[in-house]
């Protein structure tokens, strides 16, 4: 116990800033990933074989390979190509933060795309027919009927994806990022007390998981109000 207090007094501020960076990465990647997941889901449902093929291949690749490899592909791999090194984007693409964010967004969008696809397929057929009968264009029907409905249907499954994303961000430490895991590794090697330091990190991660679960429970209550009211 004394050791834990010692670690907290020495590395408390670092752990907090790491925690903040982790939260920031998860939040940004979750929002951007969800926005990307919608076109991915629509592509996976498209009747156009080219669009379907491309989105399916993207989804297959990012769901079928380890996140760590994807992270290294972006962070170390992109520099292999001269045209990328010569491009104006290179100063940005060289940053670990940008690479980590790009990877997490692409990765979570592939998984979330499947969740959203499931949500869209679960929208009752009658509602879509009703929208059409009212003369709604395909876009209007998606914007006002199908997507909002799919969103509330897939919220519970989406909360799992965000938790998986949170656990994935721990890998950002392998490309030099000082998020919660990176700070913990540094503190563990400096104090020679890995068990205690990692136990603190574990508790912080678990608290974040509980927070995400709680947040989604609130969101779910908000977005399924029409169902609870009807009862």
């Amino acid at each position: 116990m004394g050791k834990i207090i010692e670690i907290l007094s020495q590395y408390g501020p670092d752990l907090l800033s790491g925690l903040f960076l982790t939260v920031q990465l998860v939040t940004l990647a979750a929002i951007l990933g969800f926005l990307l997941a919608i076109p991915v889901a629509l592509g996976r449902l498209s009747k156009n074989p080219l669009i379907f093929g491309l989105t399916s291949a993207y989804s297959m690749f990012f769901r079928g390979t380890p996140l760590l490899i994807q992270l290294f592909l972006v962070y170390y791999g992109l520099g292999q190509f001269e045209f990328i090194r010569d491009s104006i984007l290179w100063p940005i693409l060289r940053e670990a933060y940008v690479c980590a964010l790009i990877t997490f967004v692409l990765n979570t969008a592939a998984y979330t795309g499947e969740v959203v696809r499931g949500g869209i397929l679960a929208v009752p057929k009658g509602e879509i027919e009703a929208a059409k009968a009212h003369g709604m264009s395909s876009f209007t029907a998606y914007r006002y009927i199908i997507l909002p409905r799919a969103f509330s249907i897939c919220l519970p499954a989406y909360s799992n994806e965000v938790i998986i994303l949170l656990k994935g961000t721990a890998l950002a430490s392998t490309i030099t990022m000082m998020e919660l895991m990176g700070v913990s590794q540094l503190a563990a090697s400096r104090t020679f007390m890995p068990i205690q330091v990692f136990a603190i990190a574990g508790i912080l991660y678990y608290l974040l998981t509980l927070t995400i679960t709680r947040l989604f429970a609130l969101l779910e209550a908000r977005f399924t109000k029409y169902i609870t009211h009807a009862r």
Partner: protein
Amino acid sequence: MTNLIEFLPLLMRGLQITLLLAVCTLILGVLLGLVLAMAKLSKNPWISRPVFAVTNFLRGIPEFLILLIIFFGGTQVLGNILGPESSITVSPFGAGLTALTIVFGSYASETFRAAFQSVPKGQLEAAHACGFTRWQTFRYIQMPQIWRVAIPGLSNLWQGAVKDTALVSIVGLDDLMRSANQAAQTSREPFTFYLAAALMFLAITLVSMWLIGLLEKRANRGF
């Protein structure tokens, strides 16, 4: 391209270790999951509650963190027992297998719990009435029905375990990921080799999806 051919044997050796680790994880993880599921279904709250708490906690923290706790923590504990002069460290394979098994087992316990509960109670009572022992009930009544329900969940966990093996390269296991690292650094063609390794992982995923499809067909015969 010539580089790729030159480093292919290295990648294949890595692939073997990755597969070995994944298969060992599957076997031990399924056993751990079964035991944990039975503990969760125990009528004694002193057994079921702590198991629920621990598996929930383990499912809420990064796999990478679990691996590092076991690898570095294990070395710390051994150092405390054997004294600071000892230079014994935990092997990367052992640490990886332990960490991945713990992760697999925690998730599998939920899969198996749901599967156990899907077997109607009347069947267990009938087995009891027919004089089946607990083992016989498990082997001949529960098992054949549990598999059918558990296969989709276990298949997801298997895919996850295969991908998680890449993490063990960070603590020094010479798996596919680490072979790709070495090839990438030597050849200075990181994209080529990480992509090659990624495609090998994808191949494992596709082959196992096909095998699981066959297994599912077999488990579902009669339904």
